[in-house]
């Protein structure tokens, strides 16, 4: 058996990033975006960096010079916002991004599901409340990016990370060298609950700074007609449980154990 040279990104887990997001049926109006701006004060302590995102609208008519820009607001129409928190060393750990038809919470300082979701849930509920009655939530997304590193790229062993019997690896990938990628997606129907789930599983490898890097990005999306906010916790927990199962079917047993799966 080859020496285990591949390690998860962190000591306790391999998670580089978790993204929680709500997808709305329609693009957010500028009036609704302005309601989000009022949350700047609410989030001030936890997200000291706040940025308004604006959209410039060009209106070109034959009688006006081409460079003329007509907007109904100085500086552009409100299009979204971004809030950021950084650690003491300047690294970003949490961010909120609202734009188009998306409300997105990103965590780069994962501390286990319970702790991370309980924090993200507070943010998501506060944000989602701004759209009650005006927008319809049509999908909830949960996405994890896991990273595994090997300091010995020349002796890359696929099976240190991946399960030999995994249904998510193709025969071709199993035979190929150390650099490859495999992106796949599939839909699942749950007729009983009238739900659909979209799954994306992206596996990729590269060599960076003399280290071999394996990235596993996994997204599960619950497609629901008009989610009731009270069900957010339940749905997100189910997505998490489902993602764990998929990841468990991707990873080698030893690696799964090492990251506490």
């Amino acid at each position, binding site marked *: 058996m080859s020496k285990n040279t591949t390690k998860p990104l962190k000591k306790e887990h391999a998670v580089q990033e978790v*993204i929680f997001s709500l997808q709305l049926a329609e693009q957010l109006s500028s009036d609704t975006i302005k309601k989000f701006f009022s949350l700047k004060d609410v989030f001030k302590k936890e997200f000291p960096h706040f940025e308004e995102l604006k959209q410039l609208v060009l209106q070109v008519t034959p009688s006006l010079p081409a460079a003329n820009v007509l907007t109904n607001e100085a500086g552009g129409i409100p299009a979204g916002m971004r809030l950021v928190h950084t650690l003491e060393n300047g690294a970003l750990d949490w961010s909120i991004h609202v734009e188009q038809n*998306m409300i997105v919470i990103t965590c780069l300082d994962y501390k286990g599901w319970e702790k991370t979701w*309980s924090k993200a849930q507070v943010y998501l509920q506060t944000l989602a409340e701004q759209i009650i009655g005006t927008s319809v939530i049509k999908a909830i997304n949960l996405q994890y990016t896991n990273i595994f590193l090997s300091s010995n790229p020349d002796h890359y062993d696929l099976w240190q990370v991946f399960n030999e019997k995994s249904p998510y690896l193709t025969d071709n990938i199993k035979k190929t060298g150390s650099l490859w990628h495999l992106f796949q997606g599939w839909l699942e129907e749950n007729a009983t609950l009238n739900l659909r789930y979209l799954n994306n599983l992206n596996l990729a490898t590269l060599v960076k700074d003399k280290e071999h890097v394996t990235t596993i990005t996994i997204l599960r999306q619950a497609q629901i007609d008009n989610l009731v906010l009270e069900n957010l916790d339940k749905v997100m927990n189910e997505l998490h449980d489902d993602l764990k199962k998929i990841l468990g079917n991707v990873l080698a047993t030893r690696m799964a154990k090492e990251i506490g799966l």
Partner: protein
Amino acid sequence: MSNEILERQSLYSQTSSQRVPGLIVSSTLAFATLAAPLSLNNLPTYIPPNVSSELIGKFFAIEQENVDKQKLLYTIRSYSTYEKNWDGYEGVPPKNKTISDTTHFLKHLPDNIKLPYAGLSGDGEINLFWDKDSIYIDIGFLGNNKFSYYARDNSGKEISGDDIVISDTLPTELINLIKTISI
């Protein structure tokens, strides 16, 4: 000849992955390029001309009330991040239902009243308090769709209730007392 609008187009960046790093979604994300510089300005973008200062004051007061309510809701929701023994006296965190009962109650309070402040107790109860103008009110939620309360007015008269089902209407004596508190 009427002017025709030949084209109306937003400016978009193609690099959606940079704007929302790493997010894979089924629909394409395209974003506007312009980001306003960091702004300390909380003023609304449009104020009608020739409006009296009293109306403008009311406008900002309503805006501020909305923000204050949001802050209070946020505080209550943040209780979900508390862990066992959070208070050093073996305190337990509140149940999710307790949080949702409390926020539901808060959202159905009438407008134009003094907002309460919130407290979390070590037994998992979430409380809403008013303590002003010699009026004291304590309303508590335990996540069973009910609340209990104790209050005394500025003459010392006490009112109380237990196991009151949370509905859209509050006990009259309680809401009347809340309404007497100056904002």
